[in-house]
């Protein structure tokens, strides 16, 4: 599973999500799909980047 994070637009407060690996900490501006505002993750009105424990999700009988 690809890790994602939710971002809340600092202008219109629309919420959308992004690839964690490609967008969270590399200094790239996100683009709000609702108002096209561009902003860094740190400038988002809010961020939800909670993640599950990979080990817990990968246990199986096989």
């Amino acid at each position: 599973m690809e890790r994602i994070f939710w971002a809340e637009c600092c202008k219109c407060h629309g919420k959308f999500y992004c690839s964690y690996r490609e967008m969270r900490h590399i200094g790239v501006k996100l683009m709000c799909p609702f108002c096209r505002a561009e902003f860094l993750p740190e400038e988002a009105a809010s961020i939800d980047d909670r993640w599950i424990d990979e080990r817990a999700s990968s246990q199986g009988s096989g």
Partner: protein
Amino acid sequence: MAKNLRGFVDQLRMRGGDLIEIDKPVQPHEFGITAILKQLEDSGRTPAVLFKHPTDLEGRPSEFSILANIHASRARCARMFDVDPATPNYELSLAYARMMKETIAPQVIAPSEAPVREVVWQGSEADVRRLPIAKHFEMDLGPTLTMTHVMRSLRGFYDISFAKTFYKWDPQRMVVSIQTRDLNRMVKEYEERGEPAPIINVLGHHPAFHLGSLAHNKPGSDDYEMVGSFLREPLRLTPSVTWGDRFMVPADAELIIEGEIPPGRREICDPFGEVPRLYQAQCLRPVFQVKAITFRRGAILQDIFAGFRDSFPLNAISTEASLENLLRPHFPHLHAIHLPDSGSGLLAAYIAVKDIQPGQAEEIGRMAFIDTPVLHTVVVVDADIDVFNETEVLWALHTYANLARGVQIYGGKFAPHVAYNPSFAPTNWGGKVVIDATRPSDFAFGLRSQVPKEAIERMRLTDYVPPSNHD
């Protein structure tokens, strides 16, 4: 005449009932297409829909029409391959499986004979804002083209794959979201040389071209030869406007955008509502620099309603066929395979086998996961369970499956195989499962109740129930 999209639309038109033509203007970039398709689907209707008067991205009347929902019924997909539409289930998958094993060499024709070269826009004329491009879903980044793209490997073969191209509020610069292994390798080949990679977007062709392009073939095989098998005739090619005979394009396409991927450039792409009915996360993808737009007069631009019925048979039929070719040599008693709409035609497989032996369900599931890594759930049932009837499959699961020992859960074991297809990655979490829902045969077990077949044949419904009461 070579097979083409408008010929197929004419066939639908003549039959009636399988095509709705909408004369009123619609604004595709303001959800005008998907709002209609969603309401049709909610009412249980799955016709192909031709929007005859869409606007372009600037809100002006477009010279192109838009065709959507073409794949939303398996019977219509059967017609694409000249398979009897009365047998649209596993018979169609078997026909597709046979066509996967064949190739037909393409035929080259001069540009002057190529319908797709009737009109050529280059330079400032090649402006994507003149196209009617749909915005599909609420959180989509913007209007998006959803049909197949073609690239040519430096090793000489062509690959045809579905990809999305996003409008970026620029007349000639778009962004292409490539998800398939072959296309990604080709982008890398050119980037390693520091050269722009030629790419075309085929926005309309006979539906067998697009559906056939999904066949799982060996890496390095030529997709132009492969789709000929699905068209049942040579695919006609002609030199491109931009690269001449160094890059051949489908001559009978409705509309083609020729472009280049500049090496190393990435721009914001997504979200987009993908086939599993989840949005693809925003990410960085290659730039698609438009070089030319060529089309037939009165071109029909195709679009896919991803995440709804229009997209489910596309993946289901090609994967059912691939699994048939994979499993049949190992399991001669294989009866039928279906990837149901409930798994978006992508994430779940119901596999029926006659006289299954202990341990075989698990083996079938393992092989299926390796062949089709995006699969999440495999349910194995007996041959008397109709895998195209989900209620029957779930009945077998609830009734026959031994949940203490008939369920195999795999953790991260297969996870590396899904990495190349990130658009479906959000759905592949928490492992995979194989459920043996076959009737236990190693101890005394109950029998499924049946009305005698002889009685059903003797007591014909039409002799006893007025026709108005039939479905």
